[in-house]
């Protein structure tokens, strides 16, 4: 690698940089467009004059959203589902991954394939729907949103491989000191597992934040909708009845969609740069162990 770069290689570097800039522009443009729309006047958006910068800069849309209770209700629901769902998911994943990581447990020969099989064959939408709505009677409840997907087998395997990599000696020493199995798990294993717990929390949190299909299938009352379903309704062309028939509401018809989409994605975009390394770690860890 010490050889002086050839002229062709230097040309390649320039072309490569241009290509990367193009990729960045294409990746970011839809976001820029949404933000520009949300700060423009309704008329400017409807007439198609907005492209990169806001036209007739206006805060009306955001003011309207701040005064409108429905936005906060949906947003609050999303926060609530995300927190409850993530807590259940991380807990469930951890207590399953821990015993599965112990090679001394002979029944793992059965349990591990039992769990992994579900990655390749699932019951499908209809039996799931019947189970949740008819058999368990969970329609229109938060449990229908957070329980069916509580444990992701992919995440489970990540966590299992992390636990497998922890040094056995610490646990043995703690057991020698008279610490019980549960004590070892809570006082030794979990503190050692902060990186993987952070990764799991983020994976589940983002998944739950973005979730729309479960709520779409199971939540009948609008009061319980997460923000994602509200975005969907706006994008599908919510009518006056949905948004509110006031003159104020109709003055933000065209910009309300983009402003809501911006606010829905905002927490993720803000937190993302600081936490993306956990996601990447999680992905690559999965690759090592399979």
């Amino acid at each position: 690698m010490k050889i002086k770069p050839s002229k062709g290689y230097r040309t390649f570097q320039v072309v490569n940089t241009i290509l990367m800039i193009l990729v960045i522009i294409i990746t970011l443009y839809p976001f820029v467009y949404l933000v520009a729309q949300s700060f423009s006047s309704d008329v400017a958006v409807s007439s198609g004059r907005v492209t990169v910068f806001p036209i007739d800069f206006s805060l009306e849309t955001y003011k309207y959203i701040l005064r409108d209770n429905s936005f906060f209700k949906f947003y609050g629901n999303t926060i609530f589902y995300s927190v409850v769902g993530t807590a259940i998911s991380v807990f469930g994943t951890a207590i399953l991954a821990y015993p599965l990581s112990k090679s001394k447990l002979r029944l793992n020969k059965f349990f591990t394939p039992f769990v992994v099989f579900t990655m390749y064959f699932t019951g499908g939408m209809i039996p799931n729907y019947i189970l949740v709505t008819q058999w368990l009677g969970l329609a229109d409840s938060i449990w229908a949103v957070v329980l069916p997907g509580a444990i992701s087998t992919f995440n489970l395997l990540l966590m299992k491989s992390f636990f497998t990599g922890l040094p056995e000696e610490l646990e043995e020493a703690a057991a020698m000191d008279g610490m019980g199995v549960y004590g070892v798990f809570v006082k030794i294993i979990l503190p050692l597992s902060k990186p993987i717990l952070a990764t799991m929390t983020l994976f589940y949190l983002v998944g739950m934040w973005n979730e729309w299909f479960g709520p779409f299938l199971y939540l009948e009352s609008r009061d319980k909708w997460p923000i994602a379903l509200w975005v969907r309704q706006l994008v599908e062309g919510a009518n006056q009845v949905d948004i509110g028939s006031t003159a104020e509401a109709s003055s933000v018809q065209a910009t309300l969609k983009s402003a809501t989409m911006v606010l829905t994605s905002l927490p993720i975009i803000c937190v993302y740069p600081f936490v993306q390394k956990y996601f990447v770690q999680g992905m690559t860890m999965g690759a090592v162990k399979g």
Partner: protein
Amino acid sequence: MSKVKAASRPAARKKDSLLHHIRKEWKLYTFLILPILYYVLFKYVPVLGNIIAFRRYKGGPNILGQDWVGFRYFNQFLTDPSFWNAFWNTLRLSIGYLLVRFPVTLIFALLINEIRKQKWKKTVQTISYLPHFISLVVVCGMVKELLASNGPINSLIASLGLDKIAFLSEPGWFDTIYIGSGVWQALGWGTILYLTAMTNINTELYEASSIDGAGKFKQAIHVTIPGIMPTIMTLLIMDIGGIVTSSNMQKILLLYNPLTQERADIIGTLVYRMGIAGGNFSYAAAVGLFEAVIGLILVTGANFLSKKFTETSLW
């Protein structure tokens, strides 16, 4: 609690009977109770619930249906043109998406790998991963906004003096929109595993090949790609396995409309419309089961072929 320790000694374990083993380790096994119940209830009961594909089920809490009808629902959908339309659409859209996304992602990873300035490389990576974390609802909303008749793309077209295009209601544009937005969202994230594999390639291989006079391009072909071949194969197996069963159903549900349905309807959306929107649960379950079985066959087949020819496999 020295019992716990004794149990971990292989010599002691060998003599034990299974019952003895469980008695010794029962506390660890208690961890499994709740999660395994979860798997039974939410993953295996639905697998068994597919029995309604062979039984008449008309709704209600009797989730196993009323009476056996054998393969009646299978005969029904196999002779239904709308099923075959959805079937071919599924293959066309999934394979089309795979054929575009797979090489583009690989090339993008190779190009990122050639970036010399670490800071710039990190920036490109961070920005390109971002769309992966955006809600599908927002992504589809963006697509609709960008392609709307008063959106920026049509404004550009109009400013060139051309006629505006009704992208979202034109069946002929659906494939492009579906594949394009999919690549937009998956491109960066898809490179992670390749880039990790690339950092694990022995740098001596590059030095040796450059002494042999290989340029950067030749190195990419002869060193980098062979070095990441196991990763390429693993991802390819998973993608081929997912051709029929992939979760693209949600995206199509958000993107299609009655005007584009003829080109956009896939097995998943058909199952949704027939079963959940239409109440024909048994019929829809039969279609869903057919899809799942084909998916399992595909992933098993791809895994087998890969094991045979490249010595890489998922299991």
